[in-house]
């Protein structure tokens, strides 16, 4: 039992210490439908009303159309005209991918994705009206592409604990506020202590 407990705690420590770029704000457009086909050399753009501060990566859901996935470039342009770019090489797998782009300042931006390869890519999002849809070469695509904003620097769960405490407090009941996550943790720990004590007491009397 001690070995299993040690392994579980070690696994927990490893998971909590893993660093990765984390989501900064919720993205309400779900990547549910294939909405934009980026042919080789084409560029799709859409407006983002508010790119949050601290954004260092854009997360999209992309799928291959042919046998290989093409390199993609992301470009963000602020209303002031400041522009930054980032790219990922081809060979990515279907599903969520994140492209590093340092966003110079928060606020509204034009976000564009450029297909640098020789094969097509499909971007996922939600079907929407032409005004809100991504435009590819001036023509509205079938919908708006889901673009999530991730932090630039990787963060571990330990470092994220303050943010989690604050986020959970928004809907915390019974006046718990920022204590809600710690109360939950205390309940879990109490349950663990009790369960382990019980497990230690399990003996065959015969």
């Amino acid at each position, binding site marked *: *039992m001690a070995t*299993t*407990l040690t392994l*579980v705690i070690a*696994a*927990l420590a490893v*998971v*909590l210490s893993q660093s990765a770029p*984390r*989501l900064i*704000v*919720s*993205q*309400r*457009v*779900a*990547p*549910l439908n294939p909405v934009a086909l980026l042919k080789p050399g084409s560029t799709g753009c859409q407006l983002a009303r508010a790119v*949050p501060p601290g954004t260092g990566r854009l*997360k999209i859901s992309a799928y291959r159309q042919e046998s290989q996935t093409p390199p993609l470039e992301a470009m963000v342009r602020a209303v002031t005209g400041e522009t930054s770019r980032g790219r990922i090489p081809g060979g990515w797998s279907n599903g*969520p991918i994140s492209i590093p782009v340092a966003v110079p300042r928060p606020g509204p931006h034009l976000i564009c994705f450029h297909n640098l390869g020789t094969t097509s890519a499909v971007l996922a999002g939600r079907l929407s009206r032409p005004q809100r849809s991504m435009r590819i070469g001036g023509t509205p695509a079938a919908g708006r592409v*889901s673009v*999530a904003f991730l932090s630039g620097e990787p963060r571990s*769960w330990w470092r*994220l604990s303050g*943010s*989690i405490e*604050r*986020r*959970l407090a*928004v*809907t*915390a*009941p*019974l006046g*718990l506020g920022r204590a*809600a*996550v710690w*109360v*939950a*943790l205390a*309940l*879990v720990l*109490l*349950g*663990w202590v*009790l*369960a*382990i*004590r*019980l*497990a*230690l*007491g*399990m*003996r*065959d*009397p*015969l």
Partner: protein
Amino acid sequence: MSTTDVQPHARTDTPPRVRLCRRVPRAGGACALVAVLNALAWALITPPFEVPDETQHFSYTQTIVEAGRLPRPLAIPSQSPEEREVTKALDLASVGGNPVGRPPWTRNEAARLHAVLDSGLSRIPPGGFSNVTNYPPLYYAAEAVPYLAARDGSIFDRLMAMRILSALLSGVTVLMTFLFLRELLPGTPWAWTAGALVAAVQPTFGFVSGGVNNDVGLWTASAIVFWLLARVFRRGLNAPRALALGLALGTGVCVKPNLLGFFPGIALGLLVLIARAGRSRRRTALGSAALTALGIAAPIGIVLAINVGFDRPLWTGGDPTKPVTSVSTTWTGLLSYFWQSYLPRLWFLKDQVHEYVLWTDWFKGFVGRFGWLDTTWRPWVYDLALGVFTGIACLVAAELAKQHAALRARAGEFATYFSMTIGLLAMIAAAGYSYRLSTDFAFEQARYLLPLLPLYAALIALAARGAGRRWGPAAGAVMVVLALGHGLFAQLLVVSRFYG
């Protein structure tokens, strides 16, 4: 599997209530407390209305308390303006099924949400149709108590108060599971603790028990039924036990009618008990079985009367929001669907489910699928879990092989549990069959299997015993720690899904 009888309880002069408390074993109470603590933690970390159908279940209770009536299957809204606007501010529709969707957490989102909370919107629901309207009102009437207790608070306070009742019910479920194991395996007390603890921290059980959902009440009723049934098999069918069994069954049906699936198995069990009573005591046994039927009928009768009194259909009123379409169901289609819902499709059956449901819905759902079923583990976790459960299955098989004589001696009892299981599975398949035909969506969710939680606990206890007398308690302890780890990682998964 020992058939050893317990020692008769010594008579004392202590008052009955104190005696009752003393008869609840401390380990059983502690296992129940673990379940309550675990469910309360789930209640705190799961965002409001992110447990399946929680919006509708909340609305049912709100209709009872605020409008003083029961919802009816009418094509009018079911939710109060308050609940409707709060769920809009929470943007539930954009968060569910969206891997990058999160509840409000920025300052602006929080300000908008709190403006809605403070706007004094009406709490009175129109009381129309939702997918839970046709359920009997028992669970919702019970939830009215915590709702009333927190009536001065925000909608989140009231929801949390209701979640606390669900968490307490999960404690009762685990206590009953412990007591069931005590009757089932009287010679191995440590195995009761192992089975009950693993059940207490099972992630799907904990997650739903931390929310507002009548499945929680169903699981409690089901665990009581299993305990009472094991008791009558071990101690004999007498009038009080038979009546209690009937009342538990009837009450369970009034929480959620899925418990009707147990009825064929219960009928078989009663027949076995009557046959076992012998000629001299057959009349008494028959009388007791009649009391069971009476116990079943009493709560159901009360609910029927309430339905009539509140101008609701006698039992179920269909869905008035959908046109009445003639979905052509056939017995052969149903049987084929039943098979495919749990086992690999045979070559001559028409493909009705398009996937291997045992793996995609039942197994993966049991290992963990949270939120509105949109929060899942990475694929390798399910593969790892399959390995662990295969190991557990081998230990169970070893134990059953060792105890084949005891199994034969208690064949009637096990046939009863088996029939109850098949009945429940058939009930779920019957609902899933017509749902699939009319919507082409999957109906199956692992939580529908959790009325069988006591049997899951029994399998864990048997697996621990399967490790042998020397290693059994250690194997049980290892399974408890693995279950604790599984539960904790599931909670972290949900925290990362909604707040990370």
